[in-house]
């Protein structure tokens, strides 16, 4: 099991090509094309990033705002396509990003379990089997039959968390700290994540807090302006990051 790569990122580059002025109607598009006014701004959100993550490694990703952390996570999750280079994943990826963003407001919590579950790629029969477990973990009780639009934001993220973590993923992507629901649920969700950690899954963890990265991760990388500037074990990388931010 050791020394098997879970994620390999090879010379990854992601280019964004944005129009200088937003042209989002056909009318504007034709007028501007005729006047030759459409100009593009190009910038590389990530450039020449290569690293590999071994199976069971917990990798901390650090960097200032706009360094390309989210772009990197989205590329690894398969949401964004790389402009150049490639990402090789082995195992199913579960991204825990903005929980419950895919809920349909009109449907009840119960219906959304199936909708959101399907989006994450779970089979219907599997969801039926785990249905009770999801509801129990989310502590929603009778609210599960109420349309999601009437949920509080805490309830939504609780449900989202419960659905997303129902499978044991091989690769887990965590963006920022999990602060889901009240103190009690927070403790519960942290315990769940810890137990996943203990099972030896691969974790990608984005954080600004060197403390958390030191505690949770064994490896870490630093991104700056889309480039990988440091890659090593978490203690030394955290030190360098503290130095970097204090400059």
């Amino acid at each position, binding site marked *: 099991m050791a020394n098997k790569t879970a994620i390999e990122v090879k010379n990854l580059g992601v280019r964004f090509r944005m129009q200088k002025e937003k042209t989002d109607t056909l009318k504007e598009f034709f007028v501007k094309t005729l006047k030759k006014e459409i100009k593009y701004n190009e910038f590389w959100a990530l450039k020449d990033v290569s690293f590999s993550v071994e199976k069971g490694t917990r990798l901390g990703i650090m960097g200032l705002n706009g360094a390309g952390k989210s772009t990197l996570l989205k590329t690894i999750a398969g949401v964004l396509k790389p402009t150049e280079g490639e990402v090789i994943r082995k195992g199913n990826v579960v*991204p825990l990003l903005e929980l419950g963003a895919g809920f349909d407001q009109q449907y009840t919590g119960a219906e959304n379990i199936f909708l959101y579950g399907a989006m994450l790629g779970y089979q219907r029969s599997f969801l039926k089997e785990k249905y009770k477990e999801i509801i129990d973990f989310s502590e929603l009780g009778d609210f599960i039959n109420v349309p999601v639009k009437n949920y509080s934001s805490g309830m939504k993220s609780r449900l989202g968390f419960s659905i997303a973590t129902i499978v044991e993923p091989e690769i887990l992507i965590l963006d920022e700290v999990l602060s889901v629901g009240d103190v009690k649920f927070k403790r519960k969700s942290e315990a769940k994540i810890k137990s996943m950690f203990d099972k030896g899954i691969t974790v990608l963890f984005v954080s600004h807090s060197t403390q958390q990265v030191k505690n949770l991760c064994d490896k870490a990388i630093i991104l700056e302006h889309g480039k990988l500037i440091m890659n090593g074990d978490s203690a030394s990388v955290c030190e360098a990051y503290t130095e970097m931010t204090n400059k």
Partner: protein
Amino acid sequence: MLGFLWTLIEPLLTMIVLTIIFGTLFGRGKNFSVYILCGRLMFSYFSNGTKLALKSIRRNGRMLRKVYVPKYMYPLSSALSAFVTFAISLVVLVGVSLVQHIWPTIHVLEAIVPLLTLFLLVFSLGIFLSVLDVFFRDLEYIWNVVTMLIMYASAIFYYPEKVLVSEYAFLLKYNPLYAVINNFRRTIMYGQSLEFFSTWYPLAVAVVFGVIGMIFFYKKQDEFILYV
């Protein structure tokens, strides 16, 4: 349940109003209400399906930004779900036909051809429009106008004969939706078999648009996330 009832009540009510008004204006031919209903049902599937598909990528934009989902699912599922609603509403057509003493002939089985052609037409236009809608927000309003124009050029609530001999005959002749409706009426109302041109022309349009739409979709789908 109410949603299901609406899919039956809505076409029935419009049929009654259209029959009264246009029947009085243009003279009521035999089985005018069934004539209207055939056209009206097919047109509303065309319009609902394409409009739903058009907005499908943008509507699910939040999801697309979070997890990887095969993106063609959205226009495809829009075309399919509107088709299910359409299929249910066909119950009204069966009811009204029986009340009007139009008995099904063997040719009714051939109605499957215009029905499937219509689905392909909706899907191929829908996948094409869904890409454009990501980049151009005013497309929705433009398409509303276009579908309205298509409605008037589809001989839904008037008989096409006079138009077909006029200099504007091309408006009906090269309108794939009219061809589909025409074929559908032949099999359902008149107990006739399919007409050559009305069968192949809309199918060709659907295939050509579908191929263009899919190529366009696959070329552009990686950019969706930057715009939705």
